[in-house]
């Protein structure tokens, strides 16, 4: 997509940065850029601050790999949660969706992706070794994990990722379950409503 060369470099740079984001095409990017240009200063500055803090203040939790400002994250340090159950999800947004549904009281493990050789994503990119280490650590501390819930999305990639984790955890004495098929095939955990999510969780099956 060619931009008119008359564009000031600072505007062109912003459009370029926006286009690189998922789901934003050149037209949307231009519209956003011109909106920010015309909006009061504080609108643009608030966005800039939020973006800067996003990077400066957040990191991955060293236990569950969710995005957090404190390490370990509040979910991992909450004594009222059941630490013997781990729910494995693809992305931090899936944690947010499950937490919104208020039906799950265990802990999480965030993979940050799904298995896909064509996209160059292998087991080592998915925090699976970290999950294994976490199970070992819990065992050594005399507080073994009882159940791992595989809550990857019901897509082909999500299914393959779940199968791989199942294989990797075969040596552990742990119950492995998969979310029930209440979720639409190809659907995203992230977009499922609370009733669907709680049904999927309650109806989970041992694999």
């Amino acid at each position, binding site marked *: 997509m060619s931009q008119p060369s008359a564009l000031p470099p600072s505007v062109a740079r912003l459009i370029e940065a926006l286009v690189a984001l998922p789901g934003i095409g*050149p037209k949307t990017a231009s519209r956003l850029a011109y909106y920010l240009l015309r909006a009061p200063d504080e609108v643009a500055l608030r966005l800039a601050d939020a973006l800067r803090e996003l990077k400066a203040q957040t990191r991955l939790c060293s236990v569950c790999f969710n995005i957090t400002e404190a390490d370990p994250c509040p979910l991992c340090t909450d004594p009222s949660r059941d630490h013997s159950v781990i729910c494995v999800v693809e992305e931090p947004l899936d944690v947010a969706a499950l937490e919104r549904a208020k039906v799950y009281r265990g802990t999480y493990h965030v993979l940050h992706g799904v298995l*896909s050789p*064509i996209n160059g994503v*292998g087991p*080592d990119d998915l925090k699976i070794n970290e999950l294994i280490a976490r199970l070992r650590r819990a065992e050594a501390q005399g507080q073994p994990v009882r159940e791992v819930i595989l809550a990857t999305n019901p897509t*082909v990639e999500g299914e*393959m990722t779940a199968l791989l984790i199942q294989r990797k955890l075969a040596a552990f004495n742990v119950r492995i379950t998969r979310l029930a098929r209440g979720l639409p095939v190809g659907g995203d955990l992230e977009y499922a409503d609370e009733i669907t999510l709680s049904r999927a969780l309650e109806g989970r099956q041992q694999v």
Partner: protein
Amino acid sequence: MHLRHLSLTNVRLYARLELPLRAGVIVIQGDNAQGKTSLLEAIHVLATGRGLNSAAGRALIRWDAESESPYPYALLRALVWRRDGEHLLELLLQKGERERLRKEVRIDHVARRNSDLPGQLMTVLFLPNDVALVSGAPSLRREFLDEALAQVEPEYAHALETYAYALTQRNALLRQAAEDRRPIDPDELELWDERLVSAGTMLTLSRHRAILELARAAERAHFELSDGREYLYLAYQPNVHVTHPDTNPQAPLDLLMTPPLPTRQALAEAFYAALRARRREELLRGMTLVGPHRDDLRFLVNGMDLGEYGSRGQQRTAVLALKLAQMEWMQLRSNEPPILLLDEVLAELDPHRRRCLLERIRTAEQVFITTTDLGRLEQPLITDAQRFVVRGGVLQPS
């Protein structure tokens, strides 16, 4: 079955087409490159859902649509009348960013998987260059089998999708290992192997059964077309096959015969064994060397391989026999007559073969025939036909 209505938006030459249709013969007359073939192609795509994964799908979108929208699309809609009633099929193809192609299938207004489309509508397509099916690359014959099978076995279309996915992923994995970009995780490779074997076994068995059935019908048709002079034999050459226990397990396949139909379990075991035997080579070359993506089908007449030694005339007859067999076989499998799409094929046949084909057409429920010249078609064929003239992507009754 037959089409009651066809609607095309931005498909090839057609900016917009609304075409009410009846059962029977439909003749479309026009000069070359005016949209005759595109019309048949559009119907065939709706029936098979094939050829949409690549440039072919993008090529279907009308070229001019580019200038009208940043994300041009093509919409194909058909109202089909079947034994189980009337159904609306819709296929949307839309270009996205970075050369991506979005595909959306709707059946009776409900969004469905892409692999649910094949078989909702059934077609047998006759093209002037069909002879390449006999003389050309094995991939053409695999594509023929895939298109025919996907239309009569819904599970085949799903297995085809699963297999293609597993193959692409597995190839990527092997390539990364071959190029030392990342070491192979044995658990991961095993996972892709399982996917490949379960879908691949299903494809191989379905192809095997189909060829055994098609071979009988094709032999009959060929015998008739050749005036009782030639016996056609279709020999399936599966890449993964179960060797007879009495023979040397390394023995190559008999190229002149379809092997005996194996059990699912024996075939799956043979598949795993073949993968093990060639693992080192696969890791070195960075690609999957075993599986139905390497199958072939041979056409033998009186024991001679037509692909290599047949005359053009013999090859033409064999391919016509195959298509006639496909027609019969589809009807037998689904209890529903497929729609015939004949693109300029009558003109190139000699009187005897032409008579044989016309004889079969008479029993079809709906036939689309394209021609450059109405005078080349028999009068009885066109008397009751719905006739159209096409010029520059605009169709008009004639």
